[in-house]
């Protein structure tokens, strides 16, 4: 079905999709970590994580987390009583903040890698 997208519905879609991705990641994250009780396996994984492709993956994950966090903050603020008049501007500001934080984060991230 075709229906016009609005700021609100786009924000919701992105929030929901990122949420599902993060939930799935969480499952994998806990499962993997639960098998790392000895130093050898742990260090092996850490070495494996140095793979640049995975680094990019982590950056994407970071972006998803940020997006979900800021969208969540927007929803929570609305629910706490911030006027719905600002819901669109809040979505735009949120997206902007996501980008800024992501760039800054990525900078530190790479500094740490190299």
């Amino acid at each position, binding site marked *: *079905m*075709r*229906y*016009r997208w*609005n*700021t*609100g*519905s786009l*924000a*919701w*879609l992105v*929030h*929901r999709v990122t949420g599902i991705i993060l939930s799935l990641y969480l499952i994998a994250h806990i499962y993997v970590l639960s098998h790392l009780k000895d130093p050898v396996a742990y260090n092996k994984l850490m070495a494996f994580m140095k793979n640049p492709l995975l680094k990019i993956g982590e950056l994407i994950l970071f972006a998803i987390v940020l997006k979900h966090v800021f969208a969540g903050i927007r*929803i929570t603020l*609305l*629910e706490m*009583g911030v*006027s*719905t*008049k600002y*819901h669109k501007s809040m979505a735009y500001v949120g997206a902007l903040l996501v980008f800024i934080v992501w760039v800054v984060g990525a900078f530190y991230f790479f500094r740490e890698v190299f």
Partner: protein
Amino acid sequence: MSKYYTFKIKRYLPDENPSTRWDEFRVKLNSMERVLDGLIKIKETMDGTLTFRKSCAHGVCGSCAMKINGQNRLACQTLVKDLPEIIEIEPLPALPVIKDLVVDMTMFFHKNDKVLPYLINEEPPPERERIQSPEDQHKILESITCIMCGSCTTSCPVFWADKEYLGPSALLKAYRFLFDTRDRATEQRLEAITGEHGVWRCHSIFNCVEVCPKEIDITKHILKLKRLAVKKGFTGGEK
């Protein structure tokens, strides 16, 4: 100042053909005319089988809600001059279509019944009117303007997926009574709207607000309902 418009209309004529099709009509309309005028012109002069609901024709009865260029609107309140030359018209989304632009609204109205949509106050009435301050009346002012056209509920992505979801219109109706100082059924009504398919399913998507022909900020009202439910939850109003 008249101009030709192309109406692309999604047709469904169950007596003739079980599948839907798109028909195109070219209509000349002036700048004051509305989409509804276009539809009437088509029905009167081009295709008498074209079927749609209409009544008041000035946005107070809610009969002619339909999807116009991808968004729910009242045909009688949408001026053609504000639209591109090609106007795409479909029935309201997510409800069973009876014929052409006519949808079966039973499900929509049934949702209202679930929120006890009437003033409940069994205290013996005073001799004169019940006193209500203008400030208290203002709390429900926006919510009483709802005309039940169905634009909001059928624009809601949650309703598209979850047909049991009460939806913006019914929640707004619940608000109208929960925030009416004369009503006494707060607990019952809160219980009715806080179920699995109730107020918590609203994700503040704002599609309902975008389409409401009466410009009601429905999401704002639903958010207030959530806060009321939480408040009552803490004070023991809810199980």
